[in-house]
Structures are given as structure tokens and as C-alpha cells.
């Protein structure tokens, strides 16, 4: 399986975006969530790379990407992602954004509609005051999390990230996730910047402009971004399909091993 990696310099070297590419075929760009590096997609890369060219990257300030600017917005992060496509000379791409990455994916689909072949929005929301908000306990935890040591924060996040069934039956898979997450350096400043970007994200009123085939995927037991947001997205994006995973929480790719295959089929149907 062919693979490669590289760095895109932006802003005269003030922002450097690290990317990896695995497999051959129609390209798909995976955009990860808050505080995570592109390596967090390892299960999905394995599932999709047999039939597609899978591109992952680290958001500015996270993992092997660097940023000397404080411009953390989903718009700027979308431009970072598009700069990778420019660097790789890819005209059109399937997009799969998860959580914060789903917000960035919405911005790419709105700002660069001709570049997007199809769109998967996983465990995300439209932003603005219309979004369904998490319980105050969840909000308080994520504010506190930035100050916790990495390993403690990773384990303390488990009740928020995973559904009750996974916490009881999939302890090994959760431990694998955490081991992978801890292998990447965690930048507190970038985390806070991403938190601000997520808080100020607002695509609600513009979602009806999206003309790209879209699949919305969400865990019914998601405590971080309640599943009501998925219904809202599917109603606002014209023609969007909705897949609710009944037993899953926020990190459904870990909890539902079949979901990556279903997403691969969606991409194949819109190739």
C-alpha cells in the first residue's frame, strides 16, 4: 500500500501543516476533532485505504503541525486543509470531518464547493446559538481538561467520549485509543484555540447552500455534541442522509466497528 507524508508551509512559515497519505484511488480527506492529531484516524485509515487514497493531517498547533499565529477559527482551519489539497494537486476530494473536524468540513464545503465530491459530517454541529448544547457538567469538564496532565485527562474523558455499552464491553478498544492519543504531543495553547474556534463556529444559516451529497453520522448517546444536532444538520443540508448509531457515544468510530465500512460505501456511491 503506497504511503507518504509531507509538510505544507503557510503564512511564510508561521503555520506548518503536517499531512500523511495512505493508499491509492479516489482521495478522501479526514479531518479530526478537538485536540487530536491526524493519527487518531488510524482505525478509519485502515478501513478506507484498501480502496481510496486516505489523507490525514494535524491541525495547526497540534501533533507535528506548528502555528505561530493565534488565528484559530474553523474558516482558517478549512483554508489549512485546502492548502494540503493544493500542495498535493488534488482538485476534488471526499471529505470526512469528525466533531470539530466536521465544523471545518462544513466550512470547506461552503468556501470551496467545487473541491468537494461528497461530505460526511460525524458527531458534529452547525454552530451558532441554534446548536443543541451539552449539559453544563460536560462543558465544565472540557474547560477543566486543558489544565489536566495528558494521561489523567485522557482517562477522565472516557465517560464523556464513549457510550455506556462501550465502557462496559470495549475497554480494550478504549485503551488502544488512549495509548495512541498519548503518543502525540498535546499543546494546551492549541487546544484552547481550537476550543474557541469550535465555540465561535456558525454555519447554521448557510447549510442550505451545500449542494454536495452529504451523510450525517452521530452516536445517539453522545454527551459532548448531543444527537439533536445531527437531526438539525440533516434537515438543513439539502438531501442529506442521516445515520444514528443507537448504542454509540461521541467517539463512535471506536464503538461501532462497522461504521467505517458504511462510510466507505457512501464515498464509493458518490465517486
Amino acid at each position, binding site marked *: 500500500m503506497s504511503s507518504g507524508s509531507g509538510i505544507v508551509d503557510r503564512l*511564510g512559515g508561521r503555520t506548518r501543516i503536517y499531512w500523511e497519505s495512505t493508499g491509492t484511488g479516489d482521495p478522501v480527506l479526514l479531518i479530526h476533532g478537538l485536540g487530536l492529531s491526524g493519527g487518531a484516524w488510524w482505525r478509519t485509515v485502515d478501513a478506507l485505504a484498501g480502496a481510496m487514497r486516505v489523507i490525514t493531517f494535524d491541525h495547526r498547533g497540534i501533533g507535528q503541525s506548528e502555528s505561530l499565529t493565534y488565528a484559530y477559527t474553523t474558516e482558517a482551519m478549512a483554508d489549512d486543509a485546502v492548502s494540503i489539497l493544493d500542495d498535493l494537486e488534488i482538485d476534488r476530494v471526499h471529505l470526512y470531518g469528525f466533531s470539530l473536524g466536521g465544523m471545518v468540513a462544513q466550512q470547506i464545503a461552503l468556501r470551496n464547493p467545487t473541491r468537494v465530491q461528497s461530505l460526511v459530517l460525524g458527531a458534529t454541529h452547525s454552530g*451558532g446559538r441554534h446548536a443543541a448544547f451539552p449539559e453544563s457538567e460536560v462543558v465544565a469538564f472540557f474547560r477543566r481538561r486543558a489544565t489536566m496532565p495528558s494521561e489523567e485527562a485522557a482517562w477522565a474523558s472516557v465517560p464523556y467520549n464513549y457510550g455506556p455499552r462501550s465502557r462496559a464491553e470495549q475497554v480494550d478498544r478504549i485503551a488502544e485509543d488512549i495509548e495512541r492519543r498519548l503518543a502525540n504531543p498535546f499543546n494546551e495553547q492549541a487546544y484552547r484555540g481550537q476550543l474557541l474556534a469550535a465555540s465561535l463556529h456558525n454555519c447554521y*444559516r448557510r447549510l442550505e447552500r451545500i449542494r454536495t451529497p452529504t451523510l450525517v453520522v452521530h452516536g445517539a448517546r453522545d454527551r459532548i455534541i448531543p444527537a439533536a444536532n445531527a437531526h438539525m444538520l440533516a434537515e438543513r443540508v439539502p438531501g442529506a442522509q442521516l445515520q444514528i448509531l443507537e448504542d454509540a457515544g461521541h467517539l463512535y468510530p471506536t464503538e461501532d466497528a462497522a461504521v467505517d465500512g458504511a462510510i466507505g460505501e457512501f464515498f464509493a456511491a458518490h465517486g
Partner: protein
Amino acid sequence: MAFMDDALGRVVDAAGTVGRAALIPWGGAEACVDAFEMAIRALSDAQLTIARTVEVEPVRAVLASYSEMTRDIGATHLSRLRWLLDV
């Protein structure tokens, strides 16, 4: 993933309402913010076009970085405007 207190939320809502009302004479908040986004993109593209005509380094690289900074700073303003005005 909203991290705004109720009191701050009410202030922001009020400011957004005032802002939207103030932009009605210019076609409304949505049209104004869309125009701002297009202007940022046009300016950034023009800067990049100019940079590409210069063959001397590091002048070309500096000019190209101005283009990306325009877009990045513009994105920051745009994000806050869209959030405040809810458009």
C-alpha cells in the same frame, strides 16, 4: 460545544440584533458578511497573483505570505462576525 454563560449570551444576542438592524440599509447582515468574505478572498487572490509575477526570492515568498495572512486574519474577523450577527 458552546461555552458561553447565559448572561453573556443575552448580551451577545442583543448586540447581534442591533448589528443586524444597522446593516439592513446595506442589504442585510447576511449579504454584508458574504460581501466581506468575497472581498477578503479577492484581495488575497490579488496579492498571490502579484507574488507570482515576482521572480526574486525572498520578495516573492514575502508577498505570498501577505496573501495568506490576509486570508487568515480575514477568517478571524469573519468567524466573529458570523457568530455575533448569526449569519
